[in-house]
């Protein structure tokens, strides 16, 4: 076998009805290779086959055709799951437990020792910012808090490969930024991350490579920078120029047969504005 974190070969999933008649082609002939240490984004609109891909990789669904491997083992291999962390698209957690209890439970499923579990729980609860609510039942958590504890459970085992399905859904901009920072930190620690999302800005800001799915078919795959770069368009970001200086720049470009497509004061993103205000108030 190769040494890839994730590999699929002709992975196909056709949902069938009770009578085994073909009903929906959810994924068609997907060939993917994700290297160790990458943050790989799986992009696509709703119903494009992202979640089906994730479920096939984890063995929750059986492929109609094709094969897939995680960390060089076939999908669904139980022992390999010791090295995998998974955050489902919604935080499907046992709501009758507290944050501490649920992390302890999942830690036990990984056969972590009591001491190790305690250390990881303390660490993770701080990382996801739920320290004040660690003894509160999950049934009393907001959607964003559930997302955070969901992420904590996904990394309780310090996994090599982390599969995150819509990790920032339900989070406020501050939460999204924190989670994105956490994903980057995890990647810097050498972990491979497969991130499925339809939020393009999230994927663009943190992924090294992406694949775009539509109607279950892989449309494009490659490095984010390469896919987004246009060789015929150049963008300047300049500071401290007067209006007359800007006019001179425009003239210079025209003189070189260039075309100025747009020139306007720089706008920060709404997310940046929101985060600045909230962090300033804190």
């Amino acid at each position: 076998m190769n040494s890839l974190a994730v590999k699929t070969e002709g992975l196909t999933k056709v949902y069938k009805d009770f009578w085994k008649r073909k009903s929906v082609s959810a994924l068609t002939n997907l060939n993917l290779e994700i290297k160790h240490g990458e943050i790989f984004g799986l992009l696509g609109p709703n119903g494009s086959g992202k979640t089906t891909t994730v479920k096939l990789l984890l063995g929750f669904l059986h492929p109609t055709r094709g094969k897939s491997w995680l960390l060089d083992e076939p999908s669904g291999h139980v022992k390999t799951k010791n090295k995998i962390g998974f955050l489902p698209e919604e935080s499907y957690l046992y709501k009758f437990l507290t944050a501490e209890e649920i992390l302890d439970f999942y830690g036990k499923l990984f056969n972590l020792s009591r001491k190790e579990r305690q250390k990881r729980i303390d660490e993770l609860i701080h990382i996801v910012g739920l320290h004040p609510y660690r003894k509160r039942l999950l049934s009393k958590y907001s959607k964003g808090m559930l997302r955070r504890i969901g992420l904590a459970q996904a990394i309780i085992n310090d996994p090599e490969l982390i599969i995150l399905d819509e990790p920032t859904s339900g989070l406020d901009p501050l939460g999204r930024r924190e989670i994105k920072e956490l994903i980057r930190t995890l990647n810097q620690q050498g972990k491979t991350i497969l991130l499925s999302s339809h939020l393009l800005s999230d994927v663009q800001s943190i992924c090294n490579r992406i694949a775009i799915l539509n109607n279950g078919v892989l449309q494009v795959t490659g490095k984010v920078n390469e896919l987004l770069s246009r060789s015929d368009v150049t963008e300047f970001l300049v500071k401290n120029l007067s209006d007359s200086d800007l006019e001179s720049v425009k003239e210079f470009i025209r003189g070189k047969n260039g075309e100025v497509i747009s020139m306007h004061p720089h706008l920060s993103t709404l997310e940046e504005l929101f985060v600045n205000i909230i962090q300033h108030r804190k």
Partner: protein
Amino acid sequence: MILTLAIHTVREAIRKKIPHILISLGAIVLAISPFISTTHEPDALPKIMLTVFFQAVALLCVTGIILFSAVSLPHDIENKTIFSILSKPVSQFKFVAGRTLGFALLAAFILVALGLVNIISVFFASAHLPPEHRGIFKARKEFGAHHFHIQGKIHHEKEGIRWVMGGREGIAIWHFSHLHEKAKNIPPFEVELRLKLDSSRNVADTIPLSIGIEGIQSKENKTELVSAKADETVTLGIPPEIIRKNNDIKITVFPTLTADYIGTAHNTIKVFSIQKGFVFNYAKALAITFLKFLLIIAIAVMGSAYLSAFVSILSAFAVFLCGHLLDFIKDFSLLLHHSGAHEHGLPGMIKKPSGFMIYMDYFFKKPLEWISFILPDFKKFDILSYLLKGIDIPIETIGFSAGYTVLYVAICTLISYILLKKREFF
């Protein structure tokens, strides 16, 4: 891992207050039991308490356990919490086994809690009973006769009962052997007679009987005259000196008056060694009841591995009900096969073959036979009569129940694992 999942299951039940509800309802039923009108027998109250516990309370608990165990797995699938389990290094087998063990621990906890309430109530209700009515507190080991014959004349024989006329016209004799293994620590023995009585005398409240107990080896004997009443069991102690010197004994019975008759059969008389330990016997009864719970849990989990919550509840109840009616199902299947043969008291009128029966035979016989073969027989777990009669539950009965349960649970768990392995989680 399995234990972690089991403890998780118990915790889930506790957080959802399932044991609280079941124990409270069970305790209420037990509290009501003394007010259920019964016969005027002095030991009726403790007996009704035992009956209510092993019938009504056990049924209540089975209902609760079925509801919880049949619903749990479908809820995990519907709520998708199964994703967070199966994405961890947990195989489908461990998941099923852990859940099943958790339900079993829960059932054991509820049974022990309610059993304690029951046994304390039984002791309390029997505190003032005279010794002769404290039969339920015995845990007697039963010995059946190895040989039975009538010496002299049999008056007549009907439906397997041999009738003997009094006045030594005929003497019923039973032989019992291997009553004890060692000469030391021999427990007290007693003999229990359930004779059928009849008399040609006009006014005969009681029938005088001569009962002789003789040691085969030492020839020592004791004869007693006893006045027996119809439908009443006669119990006599066997003198210790006879038992001490003899491992085998002979019991002879005849009515002293020529106008009286006794109806006898091989099993009319039984000898019991009186073991101490009602509590231990009760614990054995609880253990067998627990095995019954475990069996229905495994069936409920198996159903829930493939079916929806509602359908798996229905199917578990159906299996539980049919498991108690297995004799009837077997009988009915037999009846369809050979219309003349039946053993369990179905009306004689449907013995006669007809076109309808041939039709039934064609369409229902085989399925019924298969069902009766596949379904667990819950009647094998009925132990109440042992407690009510003060009979020690034989270790073989526990062994058989345990083996039967282990086999069923293993098969059900394996099927659950295969179902879950084949299943997809959308």
